[in-house]
């Protein structure tokens, strides 16, 4: 039994989950900032991304060291490869939260549309739920839960489409149109966070089965 190796592997997985928690905080902050036009909070979200990045590097370096020193094979190898990719997905989610925060700042003083903000709250909740399901399915090596992300992704995609439709309906004032253009990107960011969660689910399925396959058209 390679005790120290197992400990390192557990630690690495723990670091990834910690990164997931940071991303969840970032996501909540970004959605609150955009819905409440809270520029201060938007700045905090942008600054907080350094914490996500630091965690990302820690996981990255842990993987590098583990590969160099321990030569993992079989399920250990699959776990390390899954962590390598999940790490990138989480970091990208963090970046998308930053984009939402920046878009919030760009819409300072522009008139918001309440229906749309309600839509963002819904998408934010769905994205948060997807991240939780993705992380929990990894933790529990639960392929069925991982595959359920596909259905959750369909819901967030629908919410995204509703927002686009609503945007086409709102007024033709220049200010409203500018706000709407920024907000279509916010919607897109939230939808992309869902896609990254599905990708994490795919890695869990690979870890459990040893076969890599995409969950149909999830990222399209």
């Amino acid at each position, binding site marked *: *039994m390679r005790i120290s190796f197992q400990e390192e592997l557990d630690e690495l997985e723990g670091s990834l989950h910690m990164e997931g928690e940071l991303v969840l905080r970032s996501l909540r902050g970004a959605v609150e900032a955009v819905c409440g036009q809270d520029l201060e909070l938007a700045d905090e979200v942008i600054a907080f991304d350094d914490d996500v990045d630091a965690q990302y590097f820690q996981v990255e370096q842990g993987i590098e060291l583990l590969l160099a020193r321990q030569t993992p094979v*079989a399920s250990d*190898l699959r776990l390390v490869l899954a962590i390598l990719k999940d790490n990138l997905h989480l970091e990208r989610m963090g970046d998308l939260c930053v984009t939402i925060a920046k878009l919030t700042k760009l819409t300072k003083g522009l008139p918001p549309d309440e229906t749309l903000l309600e839509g963002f709250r819904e998408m934010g909740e769905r994205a948060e739920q997807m991240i939780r399901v993705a992380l929990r399915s990894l933790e529990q090596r639960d392929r069925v839960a991982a595959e359920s992300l596909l259905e959750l992704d369909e819901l967030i995609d629908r919410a995204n489409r509703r927002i686009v439709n609503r945007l086409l309906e709102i007024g033709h004032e220049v200010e409203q149109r500018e706000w709407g253009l920024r907000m279509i990107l916010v919607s897109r960011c939230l939808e992309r966070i869902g896609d990254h969660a599905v990708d994490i689910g795919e890695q869990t399925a690979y870890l459990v089965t040893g076969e890599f396959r995409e969950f149909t058209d999830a990222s399209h």
Partner: protein
Amino acid sequence: MNRTQTGLDAVHLDPVRATDFVPREPVFQLRDLSVSYSGNVAIRDVTLDVYEKAVTAFIGPSGCGKSTLIRCFDRMNDLVPGAKVDGDVLYHGEDLYAPGVDPVEVRRRIGMVFQKPNPFPKSIYDNVAFGPRVLGLKGTMDLRVEQALQQAALWDEVKDRLKESALGLSGGQQQRLCIARCLAVEPDVILMDEPASALDPISTTRIEDLMHELKRDYTIVIVTHNMQQAARVADMTAFFSVEVAPDGKRTGVLVEYDRTAKIFTTPADQRTEDYVTGRFG
């Protein structure tokens, strides 16, 4: 043990990925092979095929019978008093243990390299020339010796001192000399029992590189304790384990035999997984 995991007829070796090893003809076909020493079964009911011009590795913990098994391929177990071989070893479809098969001829076709380099206390040249001389092989001896040393990637290091004693070579060079000695009699198969375990990392790398070269022309079977070595050099890997009976008797069994890539990424048997990931023992 589930025979479907080990038999030729049952190992599903259709290539799945473009990089998958595609087996050629089987050189050896073991069928329900068991070996016992004075009634104690060392390894039991092994059924597997060794494919032509590929490297096949046998891995497993001490006492799993992998060295016993490799000794069946050149009938070395015949030399052990009390040894008994049951089941079939087919070599190119013919029974290797049939009456009338000459073990000496078998060992000319099937060479063996051992853990510790064992050159004769003779010159480098004579070490390589010994086999061909004894067998009365035709052709120019100088050319034969040079070719064998070239193939064993030793020629450049020894060409100016062929008349010097082989015992003056380094351990890694001695092992390559033993490989050259093996090659000089034009074998079909090279068996290697822990060929690099007594060597330093650089010499080990050379032996491993050599295996990659040699498998173009020869079939290679290697027993190794070093799992990463198997992962690096082998096309096919067989994992053996030890079963302990209630009376304490230990018997080697074949657990899983598949493409090396499969064994080291998605092994089918939990015992293989536990061994290759280091969770065993």
